[in-house]
């Protein structure tokens, strides 16, 4: 039990540290919201004074002159209570929660599902090819996927677009998350459109992500298979399938788990490049945009989400290890 409590304590401490960094790092970046705003609406103009910019920002709830410590305390309070304020960047005045709310489902849907899928597929293929080391599957699948996982997202995405989305025989859309003419709603046409628009970006992520999981799982599998308890299980005549998944797989899987937890956490930040290329309006792009326009409230909220997601996933992973691995229990 002490193990779990210690993990929980660690969680709270990390969260606080991360939130503090989230507050100070954007403020140490070059530029300021005033400058970003100035760029946006008076690049050619010599008439918009700094006071004018401050008035506009103050109107939207940001006071750049305020004491930094005071700002920090207010920030902590706002983060905890969920009052995340309004954007002071390129979506000036839109509540941060609205912005995130409109982008989150798309990123979770696209990147979340594909991440889980990539992990599940990669683990399965890795287990099998590790089990049948030197076999037909082991000879073909891992090398192929290791090559594809080394390809840059961006390039794969562009390749897919040029193969499937442009030209005279375009079969799949190259941009947006659904057909622009449709109104979102639970009907067949809309769902089909969402699925169609998701195929290419999802395939891009899948193809570039799955190789890593295959490789680590296969290698873990090979070392585990050499362990005595596996040989023991074979000697006892336990069915192969049970040894593969229940004995070797279960242990080989453990080191991969924390990697998976991390990657789940980073689902929130999306995959900026994929969202960029496919014009998919998710959180990854929002991150980029918020950084460019020094949008403190949006940046803070997004960072908080990423931090929370990573930490929670790691915490859950710790619990899972606690359940799966007897050694973790005895140590605690």
């Amino acid at each position, binding site marked *: 039990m002490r193990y779990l409590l210690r993990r929980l304590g660690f969680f709270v401490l990390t969260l606080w540290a991360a939130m503090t960094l989230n507050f100070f790092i954007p403020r140490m970046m070059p530029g300021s919201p005033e400058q970003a705003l100035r760029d946006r609406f*008076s690049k*050619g103009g010599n008439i918009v004074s700094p006071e004018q910019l401050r008035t506009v920002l103050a109107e939207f709830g940001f006071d750049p002159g305020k004491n930094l410590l005071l700002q920090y305390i207010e920030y902590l309070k706002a983060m905890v209570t969920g009052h995340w304020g309004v954007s002071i960047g390129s979506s*000036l005045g839109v509540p941060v929660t609205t912005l995130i709310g409109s*982008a989150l489902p798309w990123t979770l849907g696209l990147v979340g599902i594909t991440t889980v899928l990539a992990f599940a597929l990669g683990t399965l293929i890795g287990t099998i090819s590790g089990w049948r080391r030197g076999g037909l599957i082991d000879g073909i699948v891992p090398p192929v996927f290791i090559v594809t996982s080394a390809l840059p997202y961006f390039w794969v995405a562009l390749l897919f677009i040029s193969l499937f989305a442009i030209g005279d025989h375009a079969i799949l859309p*190259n941009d947006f998350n659904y057909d622009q003419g449709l109104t979102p709603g639970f009907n067949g046409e809309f769902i089909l459109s969402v699925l169609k628009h998701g195929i290419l970006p999802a395939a891009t992520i899948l193809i570039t992500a799955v190789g890593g999981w295959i490789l680590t799982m296969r290698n873990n599998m090979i070392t585990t298979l050499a362990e005595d308890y596996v040989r023991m299980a074979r000697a006892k005549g336990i069915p192969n399938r049970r040894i593969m998944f229940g004995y070797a797989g279960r242990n080989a899987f453990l080191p991969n788990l924390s990697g998976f937890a991390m990657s789940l956490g980073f689902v929130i930040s999306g995959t900026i490049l994929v969202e960029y290329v496919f014009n998919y309006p998710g959180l990854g792009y929002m991150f980029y945009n918020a950084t460019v326009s020094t949008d403190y409230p949006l940046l803070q909220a997004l960072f908080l989400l990423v931090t929370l997601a990573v930490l929670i996933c790691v915490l859950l992973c710790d619990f899972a290890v606690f359940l799966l691995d007897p050694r973790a229990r005895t140590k605690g």
Partner: protein
Amino acid sequence: MRGITRIAVAAIAVGALTAGCGGGDKPIGSGASSGNPSSSTSSGGSTGQYKKGGTVTIANVGGQTWPCQFNPFNPSVNGVAGGFVYEPLTFVNVLKAGATTPMLATDFAWSPKKDSIVFTIRDGVKWSDGQPFSADDVVYTFNLMKAQPALDIYALWTGAGLTSVTAAGNKVTLKFKGAAEPYFFNFANQVDIVPKHIWSTGEAASKPATWADPKPVGTGPYTVESCTPNNISYAANANYWQPGKPYIQKVQYPAYLDNNPANLDLASGKAQWGGQYIPNIDKFYKSKAPENNYWFPPTANVALVPNNDPSRPATSKLAVRQALAYAIDREQVSKIGESGYQPAANQTGVVTPTFDKYFDKDALTTAGYDKPNVEKAKQLLQSAGYSSSNPLKLSVITVTGYTDWDASLAVIKQNLAAVGIELSVQDLQQQSYNQKLYTGDYDLAYSSLSGGPTPYYELRQLLYSKNTAPIGKQANSNYSRYSNPEVDKLFDQYASADPDTQVKLIKQISSFMIKDVPLIPTTESVDWYQYNTKDIEGWPTQDNPYAQPAPYNIPDAGQVLTNLYSKSAQK
């Protein structure tokens, strides 16, 4: 990928030009002939009535999803409300040297000293909700900006010296502290008139600056039919005051985050109206369909900005700046750096052919700046004390990701190496670049500002001493720290001068560009504009530049939209 961001920023910047209306085609005092804008633009835009129908899809990279806010006073979103839904009093055409087209005002007249102006407000205009529009709405709009400083985004009350706005019948009078003609462009062309009956109640009245205005009521050709983060769908305004217009019944404005998808949609014809940089445009866009067209009218300069402040021993020397100006082969920069999309600029700072009548070609030739002169550049450097044993080393700041600028600077670097100047290029992230540029922490900067209806606007930003600041303090737009009382005097005379004198004044000002070389224009920045004529006609073209053609130009987009028509709907 980041070059795109620049275009997006530039897009917004172009919409927020500085000040004033210049001596246009028409004498300024007389305003414009009353009547429909259609008659003023009939020089080519639309010659008759067209049947209604058709859809236009705009592919223009805004670099963000739509916030679905249409408050025209919010600088982040006014590009989707102005021109579409809200309209100004008068349209000022930058491409026709500030020629005016009456919109919500049928006429205007300046006082002799140009310190007050009377607008005649158009009769018979209705808001899109059916309520009548009147002079009261105009007065309300301007006074709202006085009461709420956050709304006064063109600083009319604080900077331009506006003192009162009053109505008498259908006449609205704006009074200023001094001659105010240079601000005409702002108050007549850029301020969107909003309805008093909507804005004086509820949330609009209590928080006008932050109100989202999700269902805007305007006088413009379109109303917002629906809006999602992905797409804004506009429908024709049935109450529109220009009879028979708009012809196009629907406008789709999808939110593109990046150039690639927008370029693809333009090339395939899925979208018909574009406003961005497309690399290798002839192959990627033009060759895809005979109906795909593009036109890039130049409107301002891209320049090498030397730091004129005495704290910079090299660039503050006139001989060094002259050497730079002689050494650079602008044609080569244009061809190699900008693929020829941006034409070569000239040392007078006057953008040609857009502002040809202000351009003093003889002065340029006399000074020898019409072509590169390596020998002269070498001599000047020698006179400034530099030689092969003591070479001049300079660094130039630019923004990382602006690939066309990088290519241009590579050419410039070669040009300068030929005369013995070692140039090192510093690619900086946008915000760091801005910081250095604004505070004067550089030798040379590669930079571009937006223009205005005459060269006055850009030159004033660049050269007027009130727009600069000491090193370490943020300068408004005169980043080169140039300050010359004689030049200031010329700028001051411009506001109350008659059109002919204004042309002379600009020629005089540009003579100082040659004499003092405060900065070195290299190429001319352009409006990016692609259009597809498969179904839609009525586009602005080089022969008929009735408005700035890129969709991000506000209120110009409104002019374009009221002139477009669908060919298939005519059958």
